């Protein structure tokens, strides 16, 4: 695969690096792993094959042989030559044709049949941008980069041979709503925040700050204060945690967030809504809705069932 134009922050990502937090290694990975997984399934890949996360700019790609490609995520325009490729569909792309991705809003994930062949470091092909390893040379893609691909799977070849058009007449389900409301469960220090702060946190509208990145979304708006002052000892933290530093401006940790931290956590974004959080960009407005832990878990289990159903459906149809 030749990267004719790389865009501004295009990285190789898979489902992330699990099992090394005790060594300070973050998950990295596709910030919306569900979109990455659906895109992979659409092109006959294992759901955690390595693909591209595209954030801003224009990306142009060309392939050395015929491939299937699919994308999911934000509001993007993707063209295969002159044909427009909608999200959640599968397209066949011939070697001489250019795939052009124009980012408009949020992030998108592009899967290519076979998946990107970069070395798996610590059991993952994801790019760790802060520690500069994994993905392609530990960095975002640049113009003229060349990446190897694994051969397309037998399933991908069957999908491709049965497609009468360049674009599939079937697609994957849309599993993520576009709402700018993030559902939360109570954080470990929830009770320690003043009642007034908790109320303002849940009723207020926050704006995403310019210095937000893959580590975290920094929010501006209501100032949130903790009743009990004093330093907390650092403790393990999870992606989705909403930390309140001393200045009272919330930070939502994303996939590149650090593994331990000492700021009090008012709440946690539920796993299902990390896909929504991944689409937020600077100046977006966001609100919160508190739900019960059991409901958060039910939503996650339902989403996993939906993905499994799509996988089985696809395998059955192209058996």
């Amino acid at each position, binding site marked *: 695969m030749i990267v004719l134009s790389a865009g501004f922050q295009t990285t190789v990502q898979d489902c992330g690096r*699990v099992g090394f937090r005790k060594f300070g290694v973050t998950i990295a990975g596709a910030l919306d792993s569900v979109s990455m997984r659906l895109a992979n399934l659409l092109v006959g890949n294992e759901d955690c094959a390595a693909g591209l996360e595209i954030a801003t700019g224009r990306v142009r790609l060309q392939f050395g042989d015929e491939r299937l490609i699919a994308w999911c995520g934000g509001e993007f325009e993707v063209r295969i030559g002159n044909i427009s490729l909608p999200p959640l569909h599968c397209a066949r792309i011939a070697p001489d044709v250019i795939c052009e991705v124009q980012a408009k809003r949020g992030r998108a994930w592009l899967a290519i049949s076979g998946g990107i062949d970069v070395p798996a470091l*610590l059991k993952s092909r994801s790019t760790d941008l802060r520690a500069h390893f*994994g993905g392609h040379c530990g960095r975002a893609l640049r113009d003229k980069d060349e990446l190897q691909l694994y051969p397309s799977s037998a399933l991908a070849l069957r999908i491709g041979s049965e497609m009468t058009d360049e674009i599939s007449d079937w697609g994957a389900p849309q599993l993520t709503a576009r709402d700018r409301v993030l559902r939360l469960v*109570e954080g470990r220090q929830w009770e320690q925040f003043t009642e007034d702060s908790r109320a303002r946190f849940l009723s207020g509208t926050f704006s995403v700050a310019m210095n937000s990145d893959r580590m975290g979304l920094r929010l501006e708006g209501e100032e949130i204060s903790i009743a009990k002052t004093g330093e907390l000892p*650092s*403790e*393990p933290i999870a992606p989705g945690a909403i930390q309140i530093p001393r200045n009272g401006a919330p930070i939502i940790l994303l996939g590149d967030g650090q593994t331990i931290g000492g700021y009090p956590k008012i709440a946690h974004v539920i796993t299902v809504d990390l896909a929504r959080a991944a689409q937020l960009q600077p100046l977006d407005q966001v609100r919160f809705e508190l739900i019960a832990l059991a409901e958060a878990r039910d939503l996650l289990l339902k989403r996993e069932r939906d993905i499994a159903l799509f996988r089985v459906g696809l395998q059955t149809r192209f058996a």
Partner: protein
Amino acid sequence: MRLDALGDSAVILDFADEYSDPDKLLRRVLAAAEALERAQIPGVVEITSAYQSVALFFDLGRVVAAADEHRVEDFLNDRITSALAAAGRASRKKVRAIEIPVCYDAEFALDLSGVAEQTTLDPAEVIALHLSAKYITACIGFMPGFPFLAGLPRRLHLPRLATPRTRVPAGSVAIAAGQSGIYPLESPGGWNVIGRTPIRLFDANANPPALLRAGDRVRFRSITRDEFNALMR
């Protein structure tokens, strides 16, 4: 011990109510993390610890499958409690002792004069104190392979720099917040840098990728600039 949810796919165990002494508390935490690793609770995909707590991250679907008809909380609570009860409060692993060579040359010791000023010690006394201590790795975090080393002599307890550096060189040995630490990779940072080690603390191509693990004993050894250069090669 108190168990709290960290979102929908992780829980944290806090042992702060069991010991007030930080060393005993840390030993308890490390033994608990070790016991929980050994217990291989179905669905738990990673375990990590810090000063007074251990977190378990899990794959919800696998936990629910293993829990059968029970609630996720009850299932995890049962498994965690029995793993901790079976293991006792002391680590079974042999303690690893690791010596880290440090060159305290002025070129590397970016904040040594500032530290000397703030502590009203000579630079040589600062170095001697830093070398005199026996450290224990409380946890790894902040960045891959960065050890938080407890055991820094009281005289060297200082706050972080008022203005963090945008670029701290890899290998920088630093002090702040009552601890010593080592930057494995170049990064922004606010600790007081007093030396540099030629030893590599993080290597993504190795498994385990970090030189140090929580619980490791650490001592620093002073080396000359020539020794530093030789070890860098």
